[in-house]
């Protein structure tokens, strides 16, 4: 992997420390401030830390959660600090990954009572999860592994078998935690994000990749700053994914985006062009946005779209079939915060967006406050019974949305 090492070192040299400050050049600012221009040096905007010990539902305003009429939302399980991506096993076990922590949880429903256990620990941001035919696949920062038969061995899980590793050879900060999705071709699809907010990525970074069970990697799409949510259209089998656009440009630009992969070799613009039509002030100087593929939908600026799924369960009413549900984790790099909800995207038969509206709201308390929210939706997952689980990594709680009876 020497090529990647050298390429990464060259990429690092392109990072422009724009953080204006009369301190010695030897101390780089924290990674979330990379790309912050001089004019914003007084900004107090900052990312929010999760509750690493979790927070009990009884101490939270759960009754503020709202869903459309005909649906109800309730706490399904708690006590899982950093709960993020979810995947359901053949026997119904819900596996829950984390990004900021090192654990994977397993939730077993024992006659209406959810039992939570930590099934895997000591992993490196185990955010990507797929369950297929008895095997749990886990994507960490640097590798993708498999745990065969884990659902029968929750108290004594099998050892990880590596499918591919060395995906983060420099152990660098940057968007290296992964989302994982199983393709119709049996391959595992995942993101490798940009190594910084607005930097020149290597050919493997800022991309969607896929790997087969033997560990052979292929690039699926490029110019994707960071996607942590993807799913396959139930009819066309095309890959759709969410993307986080850059920070420190403005409150309203660029939008986070939803994309559709309709052919091989698509480049979605990063770092040259954002949201299909906005050239980057630095990297876009000598490029045209016309060179790149535009998004299917602009989702909102600094809304943080993460987990997404097409709904094809048997519980929700017919008009929800084939809709995309996206968990918006919500803003930090915006003076008026937005997101902190689950949004619904309706597509027509040609894949054009016809509706984009809130589905689950109530986490946002005061859009101007610091912090503005009491919870942050992270992933959505459709259970075997057609109900929808929503994870909240701020508190370590999972909610369930079902049709009210």
């Amino acid at each position: 992997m020497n090529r990647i090492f050298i390429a990464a070192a060259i990429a690092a040299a392109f990072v422009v420390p724009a953080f204006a400050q009369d301190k010695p050049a030897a101390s780089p600012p924290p990674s979330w401030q990379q790309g912050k221009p001089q004019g914003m040096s007084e900004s107090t905007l900052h990312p929010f830390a999760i509750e690493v010990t979790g927070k009990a539902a009884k101490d939270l305003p759960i009754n503020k959660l709202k869903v459309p009429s005909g649906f109800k939302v309730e706490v399904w399980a708690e006590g899982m600090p950093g709960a993020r991506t979810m995947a359901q096993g053949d026997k119904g076990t819900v596996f829950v990954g984390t990004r900021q922590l090192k654990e994977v949880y397993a939730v077993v429903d024992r006659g209406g009572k959810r039992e939570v256990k930590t099934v895997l620990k000591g992993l490196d941001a185990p955010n990507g999860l797929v369950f297929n035919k008895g095997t749990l696949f886990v994507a960490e920062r640097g590798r993708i592994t498999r745990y065969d038969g884990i659902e029968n061995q929750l108290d004594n899980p099998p050892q990880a078998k590596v499918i591919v590793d060395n995906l983060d050879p420099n152990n660098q900060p940057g968007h290296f935690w992964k989302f994982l999705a199983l393709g119709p071709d049996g391959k595992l699809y995942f993101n490798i994000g940009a190594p910084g907010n607005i930097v020149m990525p290597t050919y493997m970074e800022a991309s969607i990749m896929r790997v087969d069970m033997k560990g052979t990697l292929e690039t699926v799409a490029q110019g994707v700053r960071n996607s942590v949510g993807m799913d396959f259209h139930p009819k066309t089998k095309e890959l759709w994914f969410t993307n986080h656009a850059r920070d420190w440009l403005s409150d309203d630009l660029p939008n986070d985006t939803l994309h559709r992969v309709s052919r091989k070799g698509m480049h979605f613009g990063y770092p040259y062009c954002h949201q299909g039509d906005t050239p980057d002030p630095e990297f876009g100087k000598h490029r045209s946005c016309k060179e790149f593929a535009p998004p299917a939908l602009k989702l909102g600026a600094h809304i943080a779209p993460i987990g997404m799924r097409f709904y094809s369960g048997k519980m929700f009413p017919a008009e929800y079939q084939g809709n995309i549900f996206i968990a918006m984790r919500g803003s930090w790099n915006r003076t008026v915060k937005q997101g902190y909800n689950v949004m619904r995207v309706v597509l027509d038969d040609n894949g054009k967006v016809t509706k984009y509206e809130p589905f689950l709201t109530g986490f946002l308390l005061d859009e101007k406050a610091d912090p503005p929210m009491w919870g942050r939706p992270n992933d959505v997952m459709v259970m075997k019974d057609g109900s929808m689980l929503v994870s909240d990594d701020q508190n370590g709680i999972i909610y369930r949305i079902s049709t009210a009876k």
Partner: protein
Amino acid sequence: MALAIAFSFPAAAADPNVCAACHGERGNSTNPAVPSIAGQPTQFISTALYMFREGYRKDAQMTPMAAQLSNAELNELAAYFSKQPLVPPRHQASADNAKSGPELAKKFNCTQCHGPQLLGLQQMPRLAGQQLEYLRAQLRAFKSGKRADLDGNMTAAAQALGDRDIDILADYIAGLAQQ
């Protein structure tokens, strides 16, 4: 000593009286090397205890203290101490340091995260009125890498500090009364 909150756990494990032995009555330390924990942001206390328990932060006294505590107990202790009133600092910064302190706190981005009056918020501690030797030791530890926060912000911020800056900042901040 009266407890403000009834604890749902039996003695020992989550008993804040145990913490008082070092951190002082209701979390107001009288030892310059031991931090005051009264009135600290709730999320800061639970995160700090979590870091001791999980080994992200190592201390001969704190590591065994945190080792047996569950997340619920960490949250209860955090809720308790965050509600305790902070005794105003007895420390007086030197006139010079009181003058140059605010500039340095802005220059080195302390106020950017810890707040304009260094009162802290969310997972970031209140610094104002903290014990002098403790402040000095932590800044040195962040700079040398002996201590690190979960997201690397303090490590980055501390690299810019010279020894003299640390002395001035610690003196100034230890004498800051909570507004």
